[in-house]
C-alpha cells in the first residue's frame, strides 16, 4: 500500500494508441458499478441534511461532461450549523479514552479499504484522474493515513518533548480537487487523532468521495458532529475561514487564496496552516541514470494530469545532455496513453474542469507567444466531449517566461538548462515557491549538497512524487507553512502552550491579547 503510486504513470504502457510505433490496446474499462444518488445534502451532526440555503450545484464527469449528481451548496447558516455541531461534539470527543478514538480511526481505515474499488471509481468519475492512479494511489494512501494516525491517539504525550499536548478545538479544513479523498484523509486523520472536531469543505468540482466518506463515518459509528462535511464553492470556504467559532484553519489550495485567508485571520486567535502552490524544480545532472531520470520526470509532471501542487514543472537539465535528454523525453511522452480515465491502461486522464482547462490553455498560448517551443505528440484525436489536454513540454524557456514562473497545474513542463551546480541551485531557488524539488545524480555527495541548498519542504533524490503518512509534507516560503504527515504534522493539531483552552460553550472569540503565556500560532504550527 502506499508509495508504489506514481509508478502507475511512470511504469506506464508502451505503444499508445495512434502513436508511433506500437499496437492499439483493446479497451479495458473498469466495470465496477457505483450507485450515485441524484442529490446529496450536507453531512452535519451525524446526518445528511438539506442545505438551509436551499441551493444545490451540479458536479459533472469531466471526461464526458455528463452530470453526476446535484450537491448541496452550503451557505452561511449551514456552515454555522456545522461549526456548532463540531463545537458541541468537542468536549466528549477530546476527552474520549485515546484508545477509543484510535478504534474509530482504525475502523475508518478498514472501511476505506473494504470499499476501495467503489471509492476509486467514484474518484475517477468525479475528478477525471486515471483509474489506475485512484485505485493504486489515492484510495490506498487515504486508508493508510487513517491507519497511521490511529496509532498516534494514545501516544501523543510522548511526542512533544515533555509538553502535554491538548486539542486545538474546532478545525475548519478546506481541501482541493486534485486528490479529493486523499486530501480529506490528510486533514481529518491527524485532527481527529489529536482530539479535535472538524468541519471539512471539499472542492466544488469533486465532492462525491468526501460524501461517501461521510457514509463510512456513519457506518463506523463516529459520534455525531465530530466530522461535518459542507460542500460548496469559494463562498462556503470563505464562511468557514471567517467563522469566529473556528479555532484553526487548514487550507490546501492556491497561494492567492492562501494569502487572502492569512490576511483574513490576522489579529484573530485562529491558528493557521497553509499548503499552497508550487513551481517545483527537477534538476538532472549529466551523471544521472538517464532512463530512470526520464521516468522520474514523467511521473513528476504528468502524474494526475499535472494537477499536483508539488509537480516537477520546471525541468533543469545539465547543458551537456540537454539534447539527448529531450529526445528520450519526447519518445517517452509519445507512449503515454491519454483517454478514458476509467480504462485501466490510461496514463493521462481528463482535465478536472472547464475552468482549469482554460487556465492551462492560456499558459500554452503564453508559452508560444513568449517564444518558447512546444513539444507535443499529436498522434491520437482527443475525445470530442470532456476536458482534455495533451501532455507537452516547452524548450527554449527563459526564467522570465510565465510558463517558468507561474503555477499552471496542468501537464505542461518548462525545460531549462544549467552549466554549473551553483547555477542549477540558483535557478531552482529563483521562485517565491518552495514546496518540492527533485535531484537526479549518481553521485551521493552531490545529491545531498544540492538537497541541502534547495529551498523546498520535500526534496526527492533520484525519485519524485513519493508520499507516505509518516513523512512530513509542506512548503518553504510562499508555498505555505506547517507540515502534514509524520510527527511534524501533528503539531498543527495540538496546543502545547499554557493558555487556557477556549470554553466549549464559547460563542465568541476570546482575545488572548493579554494572555501571559506563549502563543505559537503561525509558521511551524
Amino acid at each position, binding site marked *: 500500500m*502506499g508509495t508504489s503510486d506514481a509508478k502507475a504513470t511512470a511504469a506506464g504502457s508502451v505503444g499508445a494508441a495512434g502513436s508511433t510505433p506500437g499496437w492499439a490496446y483493446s479497451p479495458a474499462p473498469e466495470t465496477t458499478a457505483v450507485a450515485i444518488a441524484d442529490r446529496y445534502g450536507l453531512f452535519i451532526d451525524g446526518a445528511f441534511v438539506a442545505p438551509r440555503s436551499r441551493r444545490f450545484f451540479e458536479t459533472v464527469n469531466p471526461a464526458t461532461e455528463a452530470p453526476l449528481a446535484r450537491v448541496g451548496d452550503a451557505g452561511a447558516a449551514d456552515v454555522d450549523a456545522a461549526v456548532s455541531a463540531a463545537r458541541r461534539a468537542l468536549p466528549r470527543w477530546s476527552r474520549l479514552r485515546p484508545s477509543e478514538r484510535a478504534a474509530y480511526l482504525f475502523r475508518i481505515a478498514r472501511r476505506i479499504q473494504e470499499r476501495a474499488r467503489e471509492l476509486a471509481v467514484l474518484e475517477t468519475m468525479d475528478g477525471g484522474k486515471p483509474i489506475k492512479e485512484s485505485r493504486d494511489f489515492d484510495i490506498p494512501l487515504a486508508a493508510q493515513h487513517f491507519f497511521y494516525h490511529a496509532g498516534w491517539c494514545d501516544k501523543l504525550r510522548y511526542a512533544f518533548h515533555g*509538553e502535554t499536548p491538548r486539542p486545538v478545538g474546532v478545525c475548519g479544513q478546506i481541501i482541493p480537487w486534485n486528490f479529493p479523498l486523499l486530501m480529506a484523509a490528510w486533514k481529518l486523520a491527524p485532527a481527529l487523532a489529536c482530539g479535535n472536531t472538524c468541519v471539512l469543505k471539499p472542492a466544488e468540482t469533486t465532492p462525491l468521495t468526501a460524501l461517501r466518506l461521510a457514509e463510512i463515518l456513519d457506518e463506523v459509528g463516529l459520534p455525531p458532529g465530530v466530522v461535518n462535511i459542507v460542500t460548496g464553492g469559494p463562498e462556503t470556504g470563505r464562511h468557514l475561514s471567517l467563522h469566529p467559532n473556528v479555532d484553526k484553519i487548514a487550507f490546501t489550495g492556491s497561494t492567492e487564496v492562501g494569502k487572502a485567508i492569512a*490576511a483574513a485571520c*490576522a489579529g484573530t486567535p485562529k491558528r493557521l496552516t497553509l499548503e499552497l502552490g508550487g513551481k517545483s524544480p527537477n534538476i538532472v545532472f549529466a551523471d544521472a541514470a538517464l532512463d530512470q531520470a526520464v521516468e522520474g520526470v514523467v511521473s513528476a509532471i504528468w502524474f494526475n494530469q499535472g494537477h499536483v501542487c508539488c509537480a516537477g514543472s520546471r525541468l533543469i537539465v545539465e547543458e551537456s545532455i540537454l539534447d539527448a535528454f529531450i529526445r528520450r523525453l519526447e519518445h517517452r511522452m509519445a507512449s503515454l496513453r491519454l483517454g478514458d480515465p476509467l480504462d485501466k491502461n490510461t496514463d493521462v486522464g481528463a482535465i478536472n474542469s472547464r475552468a482549469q482547462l482554460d487556465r492551462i490553455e492560456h499558459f500554452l498560448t503564453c508559452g508560444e507567444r513568449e517564444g518558447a517551443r512546444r513539444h507535443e505528440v499529436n498522434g491520437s484525436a482527443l475525445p470530442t466531449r470532456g476536458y482534455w489536454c495533451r501532455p507537452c513540454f516547452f524548450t527554449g524557456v527563459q526564467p522570465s517566461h510565465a510558463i517558468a514562473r507561474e503555477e499552471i497545474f496542468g501537464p505542461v513542463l518548462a525545460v531549462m538548462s544549467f552549466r554549473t551546480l551553483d547555477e542549477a541551485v540558483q535557478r531552482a531557488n529563483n521562485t517565491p515557491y518552495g514546496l518540492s524539488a527533485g535531484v537526479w545524480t549518481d553521485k551521493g555527495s552531490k545529491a545531498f549538497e544540492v538537497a541541502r541548498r534547495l529551498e523546498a519542504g520535500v526534496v526527492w533524490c*533520484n525519485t519524485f512524487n513519493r508520499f507516505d503518512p509518516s513523512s*512530513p509534507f509542506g512548503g*518553504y516560503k510562499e508555498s505555505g507553512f506547517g507540515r502534514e504527515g509524520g510527527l511534524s504534522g501533528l503539531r498543527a493539531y495540538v496546543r502545547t502552550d499554557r493558555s487556557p483552552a477556549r470554553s466549549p460553550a464559547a460563542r465568541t472569540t476570546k482575545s488572548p491579547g493579554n494572555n501571559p503565556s506563549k502563543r*505559537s500560532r503561525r509558521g511551524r504550527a
Partner: protein
Amino acid sequence: MPHLPVLKTYKLFVNGGFPRTESGRSMPIEDARGRLVAHLCRASRKDLRDAVEAAHAALRKWSQATAYNRGQILYRMAEMLEGRADEFVDAIRCTGARPTGRSRLAPRAEVEAAVERLVSFAGWADKHQQVLGCRNPVAGPYHVFSLPEPTGVVAVIAPDDPPLLALVSLVAAPLCAGNTVVALASERNPVPAAVLGEVMATSDLPAGAVNILTGLRAELLEHVAGHREIRAVSAAGVDKAQQRTLELGAAENLKRVHVRGAQPSDSWLDERETAPETIAPFVETKTIWHPSAG
C-alpha cells in the same frame, strides 16, 4: 578639577559595525530622576532595510557554519556578556522606567540569567536537529529523513521588560539554529540592547548575523511586517493591534509569525524558555527521500 562625565552616544549595530541612524534622529534616555543618561539612535525604515540586507547577506555563512562552530560562538557571547556584567547591571538600572511589583527582576539576576540563556542555546546549536528531526519509516524502499533547516532572516521585536533577558532569549533561539536576526530593542530601556551589540561585535559572530536597532516600535512594526526578505517574526509584549499589523503584513509573503502577549518579567526565567519549542517556530522541516534499494 572635577571630572565631567562623558555621556556615551549609543549607535545601531548593523553588519558588524556601529553606524548612526541615516535619519540623524536620536532619542534621549533619562533616569528615574529625569536626568539625561544617554542618547540613542531612533532607527528609521531605511536603517531596517540596511539591517535586513546585512542579515540576508550573512545567512549563507552563518547557516552553513558547522553546528559546533555556531555553538562555540554563542558560548563566546556568554563569556563576553559575563565579562561586562557590571556594565549591563548599570545599563538595566539606568532608566527609571522599569516596572515595579513582584514580577520585576533584580538587574544582577537578569544579567546572570542572560548569560545562562546564551550558554543553554550554545548547547542547542548542535542538538535541536536531533530533537526536531527524524527518520521516517515509509512503506517503500526509500531512506527518508526530516531535518530542521533555518527559515532565513528572522525579525525580533523585544518587549519593554526585561530589557536584556527577553532580547537575549528571543535572539538566541533562532540564531542557534542558523537563522540571522534583525532585532528591535526594548523601547523603554534600549540601553542594554545597545551594549549587547558591543558583545556581539567581539564574539566572532559573522558581520550581519545579528543586527540590533533601537527606536520606536509603532514606527517600525509595519515595515517589519511588510519586508519581503524577512521570513519570520518573533515578537513579544505584543498587543492585539500590533499582532494584527504583523500578521496582516506577513500575509503578503507568508512570513512565519510567532507572537506573545504581555508576560510577567519573571516568567522569562522559566526553564520553558530554553525548550526546543522556542526554536521550532524558526526552522523549516525539510524532508529528503532517496531510494534505498537498487
